[in-house]
């Protein structure tokens, strides 16, 4: 039966995440925006708390690892499942309502963890349990066309030897391990791209430098050099076979799972701006009457309702993508729709809220300007707006990547 209200089952989880975001992340939000590259030590305690929640089962498998799809089916309400994917996006959104940069710095909640959860086999899953994994895909010369990466992995006995340079590795310095994309044979194209878990301290891998950024400054963004770095063969995630029929699908499957999470980040960040701006507008005497059309409201109220409408649209697309994953429906199209909409709405909402609040919004005395900086990356990483549109267009139009380039 059609119902799009927040799942009842997730209420305790979301309430919990909200309290954590409000009482733990917000008070240190500005501190780590200013102190870029300083390690947010407060997060260690929080991470332990989240692990505890995971083990107690109250978190419904939320967080970065909640995207794994082969759990035992657990049905409710006539076969429809509200499971760990919904739990993940809802809790991530809530934490990003607190602070996106800090969420990205959360130990053991990295995008690498989502990648492991998505494509690792059971043995690997067990072996890498509790490891904080970051994700290394982008290279200095390769961004959106990730099938074109030049980092190589060559089999040498029971090890792979990795060579190359990776940039924009979120939590690259702080994580325990890096999930790196490398090609087994560049001439074989995308099918030869595999991901490898490389633990920190492995000889041949080093963090070269950290970036200074527009936003999410609490999160470290590293450049990592692989120089004849030897990794055990069993650290290759998924199958080592180069299956040109399956192509890129294996590695790309990660994105179907992480894109709703990035949508959730944008949704959470934008809601922070909306919530606070609503408060400021209330104090300024701006009345928002949902029964009135925009032409009969003040410009500020009309603008706010438009922002809220676009926000809710992206929120529901995010829930849809996660719900489909929970119910084992292919959601590649919907995941990209959610990320495309949430990414652009995140920017529109946070920038518009700064505008609505004037120089108050622009000043560092409030967090509105920070959210307007933080939100920008969410329309870029894990596939830019344009890449999402490309994916949606190819799916809707039934065109291949050689037809619609």
């Amino acid at each position: 039966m059609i119902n799009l209200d927040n799942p009842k089952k997730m209420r305790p989880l979301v309430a919990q995440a909200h309290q954590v975001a409000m009482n733990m992340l917000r008070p240190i939000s500005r501190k780590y925006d200013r102190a870029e590259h300083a390690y947010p030590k407060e997060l260690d305690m929080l991470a332990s708390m989240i692990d505890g929640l995971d083990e107690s089962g109250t978190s419904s498998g939320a967080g970065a690892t909640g995207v794994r799809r082969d759990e035992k089916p657990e049905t409710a309400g006539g076969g429809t499942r509200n499971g760990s994917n919904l739990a993940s996006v809802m809790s991530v959104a809530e934490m990003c309502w607190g602070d996106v940069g800090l969420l990205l710095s959360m130990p053991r909640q990295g995008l690498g963890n989502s990648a492991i959860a998505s494509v690792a086999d059971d043995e690997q899953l067990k072996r890498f349990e509790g490891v904080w994994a970051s994700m290394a895909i982008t290279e200095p010369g390769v961004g959106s066309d990730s099938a074109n990466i030049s980092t190589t992995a060559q089999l040498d006995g029971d090890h792979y030897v990795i060579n190359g340079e990776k940039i924009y590795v979120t939590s690259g310095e702080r994580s325990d391990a890096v999930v790196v994309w490398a090609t087994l044979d560049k001439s074989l194209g995308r099918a030869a791209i595999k991901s490898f878990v490389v633990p920190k301290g492995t000889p041949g891998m080093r963090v070269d430098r950290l970036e200074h950024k527009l936003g999410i400054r609490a999160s470290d963004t590293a450049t990592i050099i692989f120089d004849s770095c030897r990794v055990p063969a069993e650290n290759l995630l998924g199958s080592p076979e180069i299956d040109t029929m399956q192509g890129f699908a294996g590695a790309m499957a990660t994105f179907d799972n992480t894109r709703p999470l990035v949508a959730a980040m944008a949704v959470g960040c934008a809601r922070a701006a909306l919530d606070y701006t609503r408060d400021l507008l209330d104090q300024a005497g701006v009345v928002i009457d949902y029964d009135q059309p925009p032409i009969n409201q003040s410009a500020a109220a009309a603008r706010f309702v438009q922002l809220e409408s676009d926000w809710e649209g992206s929120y529901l697309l995010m829930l849809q993508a996660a719900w489909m994953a929970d119910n084992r429906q292919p959601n590649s199209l919907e995941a990209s729709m959610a990320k495309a909409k949430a990414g652009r709405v995140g920017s529109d909402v946070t920038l518009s809220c700064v505008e609505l609040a004037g120089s108050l919004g622009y000043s560092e005395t409030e967090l509105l300007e920070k959210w307007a900086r933080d939100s920008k990356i969410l329309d870029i990483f894990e596939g830019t707006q344009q890449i999402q549109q490309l994916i949606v267009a190819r799916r809707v139009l039934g065109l291949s990547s050689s037809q619609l380039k």
Partner: protein
Amino acid sequence: MTLVKMLQPGGRDGISSRESRDAIGYAVAALNRVAQSDLVDRLGLRGRAEALVHRSTRDGFAAVAKVTRVSRSFTRSGDRGATGTRVPSTSVDGVFDLTPTEDQQMLVDVVTEFAAQVVRPAATAADDACATPEAVLKGSLEIGLPILGIPESLGGICEERSAVTGVLVAEALAHGDMGIAVGLLAAGSVATAIGLWGTDEQQQTYLPAFTGDDVPSAALALSEPAVLFDVLRPQTTAVRRGDQLVLNGLKSLVPVGTSAELFVVGAVLESQPVLVLVESSTPGLTVADDPSMGVRGSSLARLTLTEVTVPVSAVLGATDGSTYRVCVRLSRLAWCALAVGVGQAVLDYVTPYVKERKAFGEPIAYRQSVAFMVANIAIELQAMRLLTYKAAARAAAGKDFTRELALARRACGDHGMRIGLDGVQLLGGHGFVKGHPVERWYRDLRAVGLADGAVLV
């Protein structure tokens, strides 16, 4: 009209009152008057048809205003003081779910087929004629459109609140054509309103006609032709005179106007907006065709009420404005559903078109500027759909849906119009001509952000 006013150009022909004429302007205007005069035609200087066009334009709506056809007399029945039958809200299990029930899916499948086989082929002619063909109307009665919102115990088919079902049906029907959809849903909207808020007497008096063989035409009239119109404060008034109500006012965007036998009219009674049941045979009521930009298949009309007198018991629902407000929201919800259906029609139409149409030696779909427009149509359409379903599900569950509906309407108004605009753009010149339906969808989608009344779920 004073002479000065007559000489000023503003206030008609879409000219602002800030405009003024200079000497050349007066000369041109005078020349135009001569060109329009009957004398020219008597001299045989112009074809008769052309003159007719001019006359009818000059004379405006007054000439076509007419009294509606004499309606049937609805036989009073039932208990005036008693509350009518009410269906329960849908039960909520708190699970996020996008799956329709089996019954809903079956109904949607039937309506989808009807929309494709019967409605879409009739759309162009209905748009031209400003009327839905009789055969299409008959077909919709066979599906049971008018009784979707009538409680089972009163001869309808709904066992619980039907807002979600209504939304799914309206969406599927509008995929065929929005104008015809509005025309076909008009009677059911009135029946649904009576099912939701009618007293025992109102339900016993009117609903048997809707569940019978000769279903009356009926319309929900909330809009008025005024700038910045606030539907919650209509200019139409209802004044109590003993146990009678006297109605005065002008309503617009009234579907199936000239054939309707029963209207639900929005009016202010003792400073609160209320709904009033008015039979079309009531003296003082006139209806005039009001062809508009789009939604033309629904035979839009204006309804003039001059000292229209009905019994006080004709008020539908509460007199404190609460029923009226919910009615406005449920009507807007139906318009959202129509927008989703038409938006899907646009997407389904442009998709094969851009793949077949070639420019510069390859399908235009191979170009990102084209393909991304299609992608954005798909993305925003799905967001519109989810927002609409959320509001509908809350309405059906008896929860407050004011905010959710406002957000859905904003999305369907803004992004729906964008979809109509891009639909035409993607077809280029072909989109601008009537050989393709996208120009009609463009006109239809303009209604969504501004329409109140006509349909309801």
